[in-house]
């Protein structure tokens, strides 16, 4: 494509077309509490002419690879099955985040009256739609080519009714949209993209490649090349906000909350993904976290803003400590709940035990017995569900909707409270309690346990569509075996007559402290 001769002039020229309306006053959809300078640095500096050429080329590379090489060589069939299973929840979560970011960018364009920042947000809006489509394409691609299509073929409906993945919305969907647009920008760009996309897209890429999965790296690396620009958007937004000293207290609060919200779902979820699903292991999630979040994001990004008065997020030390155990507890709860999942949750073998104990000294003491019995109970012939290995399904936090036994049952600082109307709430931690205290009316959503409390487990499985097309075999399985005699069916579940039970049901509300 013929280059524009004077790029600086071109970038300036395209931004000259905004004007202050005279005939009709324009109010943004959502006002911001921040003061935003009218001009700042352009973080994107990309003309649409160049952008469409660049993205077309990237699309050709990625889709070409998937459609020609990967499919023809039937590579997805040879990928490690255990790894392929976790792509079902992982991709259904990332798709949710990408799409929310489309609308978040539209909200920023609407509110932020600054031509430089707007250019960046518009291009990112297109990028996010691109990523949404890339990831749904990959989901369908894997439904067609992965060894087990179940769960890929239902990914975007199954995610919504899954007790754990449903919580993703609290970290990467609702919070990307339902705040002050600049608060959402902190959540999406400053913490989500600058902090977590490396931990998702780069780490997952290298693990996927090690586990003989060529499709995921083709898509994820392609996506990550856009994310770098989004980080620049986030930094430009931060710089613009920090240019106005009055913004600092609000910005600090938003950064604190954003990091907690992302952490409480993402770190626990990614801990499960990276520590429990690769067959060929590279690094533990804690090691990835230390590199991408602690050293790169906290050390290389947030701390560099100290001269402007911005401090490391309030709950960082706690988060760093919790990383050691949260993923393991989450994995245990997830495994115990395997019949309600849209993926197969494999057993842990001797190599896994050794690896996890080495990376997380003490792991075997806390989690080893569960996984030993989990394997025993993975055979339907034994007539027992792993759910019986935990005292009960733990209550879910009203704010983050994660199990309230994180990071580890004996370390949890969860609390039960009631509001002035007598409604009972479990809160997983002090940070979630502080969010709830600030605005309890914002957290009205029923937890998964409240929604299905009292329902028979078999009825639930049938009702939400967790059976395979033979009408009997469960989508979720507690192993990767394919021999029919090892596959759990709805009849096995029916025989056990298990009731989904919200532990809050039996708690006497009058004994709980009133919080709001």
């Amino acid at each position, binding site marked *: 494509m013929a280059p524009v001769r004077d790029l600086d*002039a071109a970038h300036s020229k395209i931004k000259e077309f905004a004007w202050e309306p005279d005939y009709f006053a324009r109010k943004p959809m959502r006002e911001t509490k921040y003061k935003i300078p009218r001009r700042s640095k352009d973080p994107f500096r990309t003309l649409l002419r160049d952008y469409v050429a660049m993205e077309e080329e990237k699309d050709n590379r990625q*889709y070409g690879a998937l459609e020609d090489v990967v499919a023809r060589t039937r590579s997805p069939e040879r990928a490690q099955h255990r790894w392929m299973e976790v792509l079902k929840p992982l991709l259904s979560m990332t798709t949710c985040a990408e799409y929310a970011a489309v609308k978040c960018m539209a909200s920023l364009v609407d509110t932020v009256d600054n031509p430089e920042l707007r250019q960046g947000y518009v291009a990112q809006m297109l990028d996010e739609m691109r990523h949404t489509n890339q990831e749904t*394409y990959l989901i369908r691609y894997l*439904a067609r080519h992965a060894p087990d299509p179940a769960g890929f073929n239902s990914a*975007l409906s199954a995610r919504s009714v899954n007790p754990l993945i449903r919580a993703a*919305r609290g970290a990467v969907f609702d919070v990307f949209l339902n705040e002050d647009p600049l608060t959402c920008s902190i959540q999406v760009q400053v913490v989500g993209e600058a902090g977590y996309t490396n931990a998702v897209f780069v780490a997952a890429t290298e693990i996927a490649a090690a586990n003989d999965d060529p499709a995921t790296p083709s898509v994820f690396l392609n996506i990550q090349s856009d994310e770098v620009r989004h980080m620049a958007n986030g930094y430009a937004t931060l710089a613009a906000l920090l240019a106005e000293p009055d913004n600092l207290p609000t910005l600090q609060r938003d950064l604190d909350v954003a990091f907690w919200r992302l952490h409480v779902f993402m770190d626990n979820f990614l801990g499960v993904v990276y520590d429990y699903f690769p067959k060929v292991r590279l690094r533990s999630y804690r090691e990835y976290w230390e590199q991408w979040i602690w050293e790169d994001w906290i050390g290389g990004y947030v701390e560099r803003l100290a001269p402007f008065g911005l401090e490391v997020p309030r709950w960082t030390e706690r988060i760093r400590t919790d990383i050691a155990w949260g993923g393991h507890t989450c994995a245990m709860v997830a495994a115990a709940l395997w019949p309600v999942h849209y993926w197969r949750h494999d057993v842990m073998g001797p190599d896994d035990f050794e690896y996890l104990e080495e990376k997380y000294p003490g792991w075997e003491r806390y989690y080893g017995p569960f996984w030993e019995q989990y394997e025993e109970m993975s055979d339907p012939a034994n007539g027992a569900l792993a759910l019986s290995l935990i005292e009960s399904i733990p209550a879910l936090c009203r704010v983050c909707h994660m199990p309230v036994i994180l990071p580890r049952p004996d370390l949890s600082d969860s609390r039960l409270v009631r509001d002035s109307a007598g409604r009972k709430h479990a809160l997983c931690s002090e940070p979630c309690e502080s969010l709830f205290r600030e605005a309890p009316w914002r957290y009205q959503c029923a937890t998964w346990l409240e929604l299905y409390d009292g329902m028979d487990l078999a009825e639930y499985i049938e009702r939400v569509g967790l059976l395979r097309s033979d009408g009997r075999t469960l989508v979720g399985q507690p192993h990767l075996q394919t021999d029919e005699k090892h596959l759990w069916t709805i009849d096995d579940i029916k025989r056990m007559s298990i009731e989904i039970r919200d532990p809050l049901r039996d708690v006497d509300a009058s004994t709980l402290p009133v919080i709001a």
Partner: protein
Amino acid sequence: MTGPDTDVADGFYSPRELTYIQPAGRRLSGYEAAICHVQPDVDHYDFGGWLLLAPDGKSLFEQSSTRLVHPDWFEYRDPSSLWQRTYMRQQAVEERAVASLLESARSYGYFADLDGFWAREILARYHQGYGFLEWGLFLALNRAVRLALSDTLTMMITFTAVDRLRHQQAIALFGLELEQELGGIPEGLGREAWLCDPVYQPARRVVERLMAAEDWCEIVVVCGLLIDPLLSMLAGRHFFRRFASVNGDAVTPAIAITAERDRLRYLRAVRGLVEMVTSDTDRAGAAVPAAANREILQDWIDLWGPPVLAAVDAFLPVFDLPTMRPVVGEEARDAVVAGCTTELERFDLELRR
């Protein structure tokens, strides 16, 4: 959902096709697979409500964000079936064509041969001024991106908003070439025309009003059924494209024709939306308040039609400025009014003065 393309994986009893999308046709399309149900929705799969309400207690998506009512906005399908890959491919082709034309123009002395009056008075002033209209439409449509009540609508509107930004940038970059090649063109003629020239003030009034509008369907419909077929058709097609050709300018028509292609695609997309809200039932058989929706649509036509027509009339004097005139302004106006009237009649809607 199983069918000829949805074989069941050996040993896993599972169809190799997405099961959570009800295709509009017999088979699931690549377009539907790329976008359907990416937007969580409490009326579809995401039971129990939103995890976080807004500080004012509002939901993420409010049915009240538009006066039109439909039982299932997720049924919408873009008739062009565009998703990001196909959209990007189309736009890259368009932009390559414009860029190569500009490059050739620059290399072969094209700008020096341009009629001076056309270049300095029409292009630098009115064509650049028209770029403001495109930018304003982008900003208005962008609001609808956030508010739209389903993913398929959101994606269609996103592409349409970006279309307008692409048009604005193409106009801006052509303007920059003119300034650099010809020299002596005062800065800001386009802005001055848009902000002060009487020929653009009624258009600016319409665009500013749309930029302030809060009903996302109103923004989408007014842009697609009134502003595009009346104002953009008059200025973009009948004036800039047709007049440029006879005034020795080959670049402006190339820019204009790509915009026309996008507008035609958008018109089809808006037709799809209007058909959806004026059908008696949705695809699942649920009742659609078609009559009430048609009344609302007519309200919008009545509210916005006269000011858009005023903007059309105000632009007509520009038709008298160039020496070479392939069409009289009033004839062009009659043509766009007739086209718009016919389009609205498809839905029993009427353009009234």
